[in-house]
């Protein structure tokens, strides 16, 4: 550049209003741009929070379970008809379900009709008698006595107590209510029009006549004098209904001593009808319902019943599968990485291997499943659904990750270490195995743990090799049929029962806990042992 350009052309315009406006606009653009970046991170964070909180909110209820703690007479004629007191016999032939059923029926002597009895039985889980069976088989001296045991409720009853299903509104009566009887069909008269609000909610005709209630309307019950009345016809100050739970007396109930209970969901749309709900409420009032930590979720295998289903089988399956994966891919991955990083000659073959590893890392995981199906199952004839095959497939899947991480760790060790070893007369391999590899180990371990975490969450390839079977037993060896935690989550998420939705979310929480634990360990390892040279 020379100084020959004219003075006018070189003058820079930064004083005028237009120039100021331009600068302002540019600064606005700057702020907008910054904001977009921040918003992108904000959206991502928000999404993460929404996903995690949605899963925690769905899954938390599954970690507790409502049980009915009641006294059960251990009747010798049902449990041990032969009177042999042999624990194995008692376990195999004792009819503990009948014991529990009888104990429950004894609490509601008014339930006589067969269909009602069946409904009453339905609040118990099919595994209701398990705790009792354990108690009695471990201590046969209890036979003939009365024991207090926790009895598992069915999933529907459990969900009812957790408040999942229907909204319950209780309004205390303002006037004095007088029932016309203690059982059968009765009429309740209130002195201050307590039923008017409820009536307004269900009112369909304008007439002042009492309104008849049907299955498609919200259910109304009246809790009075220790009993429950299901309302069938309602007027402003009087209601007619059937007694579901006998009243202790027909005496007038003072204001505040009785309640109108409204279930927003119509009876016809609920899993539990009003009668069952009445029994559940009554049991709760008697203090027999307890909320307990759901150990069963961790100690039992899969089941068709939500309240009995657990993740133990899946956890053991995951552990076995990961064990196979680790045993295979750690040595192979590290050995491959050492070869490529330290011994491989720079030639075409090495280049092909390297390109291959990079490509393999990006192959969709389901394709590895196809490999497992075609090669391991159909060609080699290995057993279906086995952790052995799952581990093999996952080992191939995470091998590129481990090789890449191990190479990075080996590369991070300064060459001076190796050169010093070579200088004092070590062979190339001695230098690598005695000096470089130990220094690279923390990095390799970090990469391995991250690879294992990846393998733990992997689902798709395992579906291909048949790890989706319904398996109740806990697998004992790597050739047993098994399932793994992510697959269990997938299977449960497909089931229609509401009870399983919470179980699925709870299983996800367990899976995420393991993943955070593994990744956390990897981070700590990296912080503690990684050396900067």
């Amino acid at each position, binding site marked *: 550049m020379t100084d020959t350009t004219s003075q006018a052309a070189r003058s820079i315009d930064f004083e005028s209003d237009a120039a100021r406006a331009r600068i302002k606009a540019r600064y606005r653009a700057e702020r907008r741009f910054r904001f977009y970046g921040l*918003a992108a*991170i904000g959206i991502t964070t928000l999404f993460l929070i929404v996903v995690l909180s949605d899963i925690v909110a769905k899954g938390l209820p599954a970690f507790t379970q409502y049980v009915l703690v009641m006294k059960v007479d251990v009747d010798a004629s049902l449990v041990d008809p032969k009177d042999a007191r042999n624990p194995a016999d008692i376990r195999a032939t004792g009819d503990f379900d009948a014991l529990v059923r009888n104990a429950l029926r004894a609490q509601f002597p008014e339930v006589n009709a067969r269909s009602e009895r069946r409904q009453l039985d339905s609040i118990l889980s099919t595994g209701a008698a398990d705790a009792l069976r354990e108690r009695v088989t471990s201590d046969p001296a209890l036979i003939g006595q009365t024991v207090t045991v926790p009895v598992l409720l069915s999933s529907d009853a459990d969900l009812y107590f957790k408040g999942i299903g229907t909204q319950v509104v209780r309004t205390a009566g303002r006037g004095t209510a007088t029932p016309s009887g203690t059982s059968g069909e009765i009429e309740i008269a209130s002195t201050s029009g307590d039923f008017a609000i409820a009536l307004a909610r269900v009112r369909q005709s304008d007439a002042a006549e009492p309104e008849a209630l049907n299955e498609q309307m919200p259910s109304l019950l009246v809790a009075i004098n220790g009993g429950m009345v299901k309302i069938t016809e309602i007027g402003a100050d009087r209601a007619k209904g059937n007694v579901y739970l006998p009243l202790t007396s027909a005496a007038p109930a003072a204001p505040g001593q009785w309640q109108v209970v409204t279930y927003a969901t119509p009876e016809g749309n609920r899993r539990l009808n009003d009668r069952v709900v009445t029994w559940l409420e009554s049991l709760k009032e008697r203090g027999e319902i307890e909320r307990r930590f759901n150990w069963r979720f961790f100690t039992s295998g899969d089941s068709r019943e939500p309240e009995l289903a657990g993740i133990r089988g899946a956890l053991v399956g995951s552990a076995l599968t990961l064990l196979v994966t680790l045993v295979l891919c750690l040595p192979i991955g590290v050995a491959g990485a050492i070869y490529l990083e330290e011994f491989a000659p720079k030639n075409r073959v090495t280049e092909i291997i390297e390109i291959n590893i990079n490509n393999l890392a990006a192959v969709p995981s389901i394709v590895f499943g196809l490999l497992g199906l075609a090669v391991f199952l159909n060609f080699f004839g290995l057993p279906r659904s086995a952790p052995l095959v799952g581990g093999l497939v996952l080992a191939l899947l995470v091998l590129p990750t481990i090789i890449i991480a191990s190479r990075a760790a080996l590369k991070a060790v300064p060459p001076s270490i190796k050169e010093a070893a070579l200088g004092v007369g070590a062979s190339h391999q001695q230098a690598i195995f005695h000096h470089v590899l130990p220094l690279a180990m923390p990095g390799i371990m970090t990469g391995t743990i991250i690879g294992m975490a990846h393998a733990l969450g992997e689902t798709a390839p395992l579906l291909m090799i048949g790890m989706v079977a319904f398996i109740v037993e806990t697998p004992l060896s790597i050739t047993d049929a098994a399932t793994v935690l992510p697959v269990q989550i997938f299977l449960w*998420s497909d089931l229609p029962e509401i009870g399983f939705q919470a179980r699925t979310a709870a299983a996800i929480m367990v899976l995420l806990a393991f993943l955070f634990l593994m990744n956390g360990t990897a981070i700590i390892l990296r912080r503690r042992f990684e050396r900067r040279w």
Partner: protein
Amino acid sequence: MTSLYFLGLAALVVAGYMLGRSRAVAAGQTNVLHSRPGYHGAFVVISVLVPMLLIFAVALPIADRIVNMQAIEALDPALAGDDLKRGAALRDIVAVATGRYAGTPSRALQNAANVYASLRAWTDTIIVGAGWIFGLLGAAYGLRSLSAQFRARNRVETVVKYVLLAAACVAVLTTIGIVFSVLFETIRFFQKVSPVDFLTGLHWSPQTAIRADQVGSSGAFGIVPLVTGTLLITLIAMLIAGPIGLFAAIYMAEYATPRFRAFAKPVLEILAGIPTVVLGFFAALSLAPWVRAAGESVGLNVASESALAAGIVMGMMIIPFVSSLSDDVINAVPQSLRDGSYAMGATQSETIRKVVLPAALPGIVSAFMLAISRAVGETMIVVMAAGLAANLTFNPLDAVTTFTVQIKTILVGDQEFDSAKTLSAFALGFVLFFFTLMLNVIAMQIVKRYREQYD
């Protein structure tokens, strides 16, 4: 049998190492020896391991085949040709022979089981005997070779080097395995269905009838609806992950303070670490109903398995992928370029838009291509949140299906291995593998070609 074999192997290995070591120590003082005593021991160990492992790997499958064939022959010679029945019969025979059969076996079955058991005992004895003998011979050879001048270290290191090479080649073998396993089945599939129909057909309904005379017995294998479905979901995912991932990367690389990075990086890492089955659960049980409700509130008819819900969650899944790859690329742009731009009076955002991004463009394009390949190959989110029906539509509110969903649907559960339906899954897998491979290769080429431009 296996445990007996490896017990012998372990005993020989330990004894061989000890003997080799002490023989070396006895042969001369350490300053006379060529190799350290441990290498002499290791040499003996290798001379034991090589023959024993070889015999095991070769003899066991052969013995298995002979025993199984003889057992089937004893049960019913007609079974030999029928793959499915043979497998079932074999399981029965093994169950009877090991005493785990439920019920009483038939006479023929018991007979076959007896043949199986006696033959198996024979082959087991032979394999174990041969293995031990050759192991001993190997140990003897190894021990005889040892002397003070013996170059044990070089021998051992050569073997170790080949072991390392073999480990590196496992990845190559895996690729070969993948290619062959999908390729062979795909070729078999194309013998039943013409490739032209497969690639251009507009209908996908792989149900093949049980009887030949049933209506619609042929099934339809046209992948166009699957391609559009996959592309639709991938497009939605990229519309979300592209801008968000890129902007997140720009912010992290150019603007973020170290403290902000310390917060934002773990967020992205956690999101990247969430298994796709978890995201699929969220997409299917939470987001899809929300999308449906939102659509209905503005009067739109949304399918319960809409492409939109699956696409959104898939987009969220690949945000960390896009942002971490782009972050690296942006960081690799030399600072001198930025400084030059600032010196010209450009603001930070102008520098990023006009200098940094163009310089990083090849890397960003390759990051996007890798992200697309990941979205196309993703399985669990679409399996759980997208539909099964192969609709030929571009409406994001409709249900569509993808390659991975169809592969999973066809192959989960029992299949006969010869039907066009089962084979079609491998053909889909082949297309999927080929497509993602192409994307990766192109992405790598782009990076390779433009990498050194600014150094």
